[in-house]
């Protein structure tokens, strides 16, 4: 029996309800994606999968595509104003840098939680922030200033901003469509191929995207998959030749 991915019930800090409602709210920007813990969603799915006992490739495929989309949205949010470069491939360092960044964000979110609790526990402390009503009024004197400092300040405001050097942080991976086209071409010309051999020389981010493309084609019924056992090579056939 298939795991109904879209109806997957979620009970997160920021959201409670079915998975597809969460996606809808995120896309409508009614839910801050930064508040959504994707790891919790994955755990919920794995636990549901565990309950069902049987592996459901269809469900897993759909889930991977949806979670990948969610992660991509989240990744984009981490680089505001920067276009992710889909063409220029990147190394695994980018992925680990992103993981590092997510861990850092997690820590600051925990720090925000600490501050919130502190605010609550300190809410009974009242104090005056301005001068006392009968305090003597302070006199503020300023030493003579050089008018040239104004020109320097204005010139700095007119200076061209330095180029941000974030190249090494940009997460980049190819679009799924590239592999869709490549696999369709292989199926047309050869009727089938070994997935492992095709992706052998690719970087890990590329391999992940290639795998997503494979699942997508399987979902559309364009191909059939075969595997002797877990972690064994995956063989791919054209759905037409297989039937």
């Amino acid at each position, binding site marked *: 029996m298939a795991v109904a991915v879209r109806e997957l019930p979620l009970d997160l800090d920021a959201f409670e309800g079915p998975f597809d409602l969460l996606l809808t709210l995120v896309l409508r920007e009614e839910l801050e994606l930064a508040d959504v813990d994707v790891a919790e969603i994955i755990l919920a799915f794995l636990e549901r999968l565990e309950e069902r006992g049987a592996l459901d490739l269809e469900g897993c495929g759909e889930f991977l595509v949806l979670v990948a989309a969610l992660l991509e949205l989240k990744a984009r949010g981490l680089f505001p104003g920067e276009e992710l470069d889909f063409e220029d491939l990147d190394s695994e360092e980018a992925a680990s840098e992103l993981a590092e960044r997510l861990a850092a964000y997690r820590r600051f979110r925990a720090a925000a939680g600490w501050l919130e609790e502190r605010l609550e526990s300190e809410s009974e402390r009242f104090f005056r922030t301005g001068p006392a009503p*009968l*305090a003597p009024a302070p006199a503020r004197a300023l030493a003579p200033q050089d*008018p040239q400092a104004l020109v320097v300040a204005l*010139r700095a405001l007119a200076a061209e901003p330095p180029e941000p050097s974030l190249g090494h942080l940009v997460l980049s991976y190819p679009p799924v469509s590239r592999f869709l086209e490549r696999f369709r071409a292989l199926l047309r010309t050869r009727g089938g191929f070994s997935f492992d051999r095709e992706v052998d020389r690719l970087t890990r981010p590329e391999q992940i995207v290639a795998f997503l493309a494979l699942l997508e084609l399987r979902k559309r019924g364009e191909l059939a998959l075969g595997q002797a056992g877990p972690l064994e090579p995956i063989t791919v056939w054209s759905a037409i030749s297989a039937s």
Partner: protein
Amino acid sequence: MERNLRLVENPVDRLARTVEALLVIAAKPLSVDELAAATQDEPDRVETAIGLLGSRYREGRSGIVLERVAGGYAFRAAREAADACARLVERPVQRNLSQAALETLAVVAYLGPVSRPEIARIRGVAADSAVAGLVERGLVAEAGRDGEGGAVRYETTPLFERVFGLADRAELPELEELAGDAGDLRARLEDVAARRGA
């Protein structure tokens, strides 16, 4: 027996502590009515509490003195501490302006009269606290509004000219390569700020 009596708290004591607390956080003198409203107690009980505090917080006995002024009651420093208080509030002559103050002042001096939203666009950050600081120091002052119901505009003051050693505003140093009419300069600054993103 006598011991027990001393341990039973006088109910006005607690009210006096609350009044004490209110007076130490208040930004202005508090009237009996205001104190009664905040403590949700009777005005005559509040007056009794004030009497209690008045005998505790008085010259010679405490550094904090309860004073009755036009608007009500407030704490002040004891007279014996006047010199120390004068040393506390008297600020040494400040040598330099902060970067935020200097930038804001430069924008007002060269582009003024200019509104806070315009300053914010040019500097790329909200200008409220920087402008408020310069107004408080008397270096910048309001100069009418940007059209009817528009934003308040600011210009530099005679004190600004004195501090910067200028006979008048026409004596501001030349901007050289930035020169041109004020509109061009403003557009250029806003353009750079937009690209800086902050």
